[in-house]
């Protein structure tokens, strides 16, 4: 569908959007969203590596002799799980932080911490 | 006893450590505790004297404990300079302990157990320094000495004491880590060995710039030698009780410093190499400046202990100068001065302490007419002052003489002038104290003050050291022989 490296660049832009959200936003939930986008973009990046022109999904079938690379897919399966695990834990933390501080804004939490 | 000399050497280091345990264990019974201390110091003195005799008979004694890092041994041996130092230290430990018993009890000090145990550790490390066979061993004990004396300096636990302790530890540890350790590592790197060797360890063709830098690092790094500008710790440590000051000034710390300087100059660089290094000159003048400046500062101090402290800084400058002059007379003078200054200064401090305990006076201006109440103390003070100044009939005469000879030998006339001027300054700041004590002040105030002499142990101690000062004048031969032997072996 795309030619050359162009699609990698799209992925990189997506990645950077996620990355930006993580480091620039002060809301804890939004940071987690950013993290999620960041990670998912990396997954896309891996999966694009695996694609072979004219290839097919790596599930063996007759009359097909060109398959895409299964290895990155395996890796990303694992990575997705890691991603959801991280998200779950981060959300749990955010919930606890809300309970403890009454806020999920970075600067307000920071302010409260500086007080004690 | 049938102990071999080797084991005696080891025991003289280990015994004080073991004594620490005994002291802690008997901490709640002061008499027993002090008995332990005195017994140990007697035994150690016995060992050291036996070792001295062994050395006299030409036996070579060395002990090897192990290798810390590959090539870095912990080992000990005996040579004249170390012997000299060990003799002074072990003897004065005994005296100081006796004195301390009187002082500490008279002054109702807290934490006496901590005091005695740290004191014992300090002595142990002094022995280690004295007998160290290489720079590395020396360095280890040097650091232990610093750390073990820290609690002594901050003994009082007051804000002042803590501040003093901070300066003390700060300067000593930082110079030793920053410069001394660096110098050691550099030496190890350049020369490949750290063993003390007659004539030095550096190859003759060593780059003079590198060796010169290392020398500067050494002299700066040995903060215990109190060369300006790294002398601040000494006055700061004045907050400590008097026996501690005695320990710092006479027995252990500063002596360890100048001893190390001498060791490094003679056995790491060797006086031949030292003479041609470009930085030697610079350091000599630094030491000279240190001598003069400290004397001048001392004149302006009203606190007796502070004045004595600056006096020490100045006297240490002599020894460093002697070492750096790179002549045999200089080395002999320097090493003899270790001994004579030790006796002189310890007496002075004992006196200061005695005055403090008996009359509760620490400022010089308050000491007028004390001579009548405390005649023995004040006479001792007078004699010790003479020794520091370098006048007969005291031991100080000889060491000053050899130092002057050294300046002549190396044709350092400026330094000679410095020596003479500073001796005059010594007179100016030391002698007025006993003079005023005996001959001035209003006589009316004397009857009601009720001041008596210091407690007996203190008095005994200071008498012994005063006698020591005189004996060193009358009978300097053993001392001279030892000093002379340093370069000979």
């Amino acid at each position, binding site marked *: 569908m795309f030619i050359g490296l162009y699609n990698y660049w799209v992925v990189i832009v997506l990645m950077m959007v996620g990355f930006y959200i993580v480091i620039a936003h002060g809301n804890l939930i939004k940071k987690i969203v950013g993290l999620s986008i960041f990670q998912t973009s990396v997954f896309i990046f891996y999966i694009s590596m695996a694609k072979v022109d004219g290839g097919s999904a790596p599930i063996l079938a007759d009359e*097909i002799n060109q398959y895409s690379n299964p290895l990155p897919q395996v890796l990303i399966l694992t990575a997705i799980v890691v991603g959801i695990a991280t998200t779950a834990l981060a959300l749990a933390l955010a919930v606890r932080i809300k309970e403890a501080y009454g806020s999920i804004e970075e600067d307000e939490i920071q302010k409260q911490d500086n007080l004690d | 006893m049938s102990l071999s000399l080797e084991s005696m050497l080891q025991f003289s280091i280990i015994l004080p450590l073991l004594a620490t345990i005994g002291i802690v264990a008997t901490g709640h019974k002061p008499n027993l505790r002090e008995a332990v201390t005195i017994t140990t110091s007697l035994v150690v003195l016995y060992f050291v004297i036996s070792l001295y005799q062994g050395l006299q008979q030409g036996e070579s004694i060395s002990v090897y404990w192990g290798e810390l890092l590959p090539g870095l041994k912990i080992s000990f041996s005996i040579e004249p300079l170390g012997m000299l130092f060990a003799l002074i230290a072990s003897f004065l430990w005994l005296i100081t302990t006796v004195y301390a018993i009187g002082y500490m009890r008279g002054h109702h000090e807290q934490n006496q157990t901590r005091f005695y145990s740290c004191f014992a550790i300090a002595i142990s490390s002094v022995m280690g320094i004295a007998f160290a066979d290489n720079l590395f061993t020396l360095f280890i004990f040097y650091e232990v000495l610093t750390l073990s004396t820290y609690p002594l300096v901050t003994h009082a636990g007051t804000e002042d004491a803590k501040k003093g302790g901070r300066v003390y530890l700060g300067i000593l540890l930082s110079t030793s880590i920053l410069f001394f350790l660096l110098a050691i590592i550099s030496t190890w790197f350049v020369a490949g060995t750290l063993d003390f060797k007659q004539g030095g360890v550096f190859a003759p063709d060593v780059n003079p710039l590198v060796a010169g830098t290392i020398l500067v690092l050494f002299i700066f790094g040995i903060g215990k030698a109190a060369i300006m500008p790294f002398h601040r710790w000494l006055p700061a440590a004045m907050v400590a009780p008097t026996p501690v000051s005695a320990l710092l000034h006479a027995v252990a710390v500063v002596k360890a410093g100048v001893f190390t300087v001498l060791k490094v100059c003679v056995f790491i660089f060797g006086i031949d190499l030292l003479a041609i290094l470009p930085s030697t000159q610079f350091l000599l003048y630094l030491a000279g400046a240190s001598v003069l400046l400290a004397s001048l500062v001392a004149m302006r101090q009203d606190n007796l202990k502070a004045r004595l402290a600056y006096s020490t800084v100045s006297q240490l400058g002599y020894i460093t100068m002697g070492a750096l002059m790179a002549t045999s007379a200089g080395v002999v003078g320097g090493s003899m001065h270790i001994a004579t200054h030790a006796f002189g200064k310890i007496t002075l401090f004992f006196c200061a302490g005695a005055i403090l305990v008996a009359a509760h006076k620490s400022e010089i201006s308050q000491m007028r007419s004390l001579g009548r109440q405390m005649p023995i103390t004040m006479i001792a003070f007078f004699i010790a002052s003479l020794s520091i100044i370098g006048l007969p009939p005291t031991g100080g005469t000889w060491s000053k003489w050899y130092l002057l000879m050294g300046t002549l030998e190396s044709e350092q006339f400026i330094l000679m002038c410095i020596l003479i001027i500073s001796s005059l300054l010594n007179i100016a700041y030391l002698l007025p104290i006993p003079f005023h004590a005996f001959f001035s002040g209003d006589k009316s105030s004397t009857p009601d003050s009720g001041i008596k002499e210091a407690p007996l142990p203190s008095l005994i101690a200071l008498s012994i050291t005063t006698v020591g000062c005189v004996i060193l004048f009358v009978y300097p031969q053993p001392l001279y022989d030892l000093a002379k032997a340093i370069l000979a072996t």
Partner: protein
Amino acid sequence: MLIAATLAILVVMIMAIMRVFIGPTLYDRVLAVNMFGTKTVLLISLLGFVMGRPEFLDIAIVYSLINFISVIGVLRYSDHFIFKQSGQSKK
């Protein structure tokens, strides 16, 4: 024809995303997401055919399930806000 249909679906998906961004209410967004989800189901089915491996329709089934679940989720937890708010207002 398959490709044309795929493209059409893609266009509709873009429209849905636009609606998600425009809003204005949460429910508009949820609606658009829901629609997006069903369109994804179609897209996946079509893609399978376009690429000649139509046997992977399980994915599409999962999609429609997930879609359902997330709508219920939104409902459940937006209810939450409504109630929380009413609870506040009644105090």
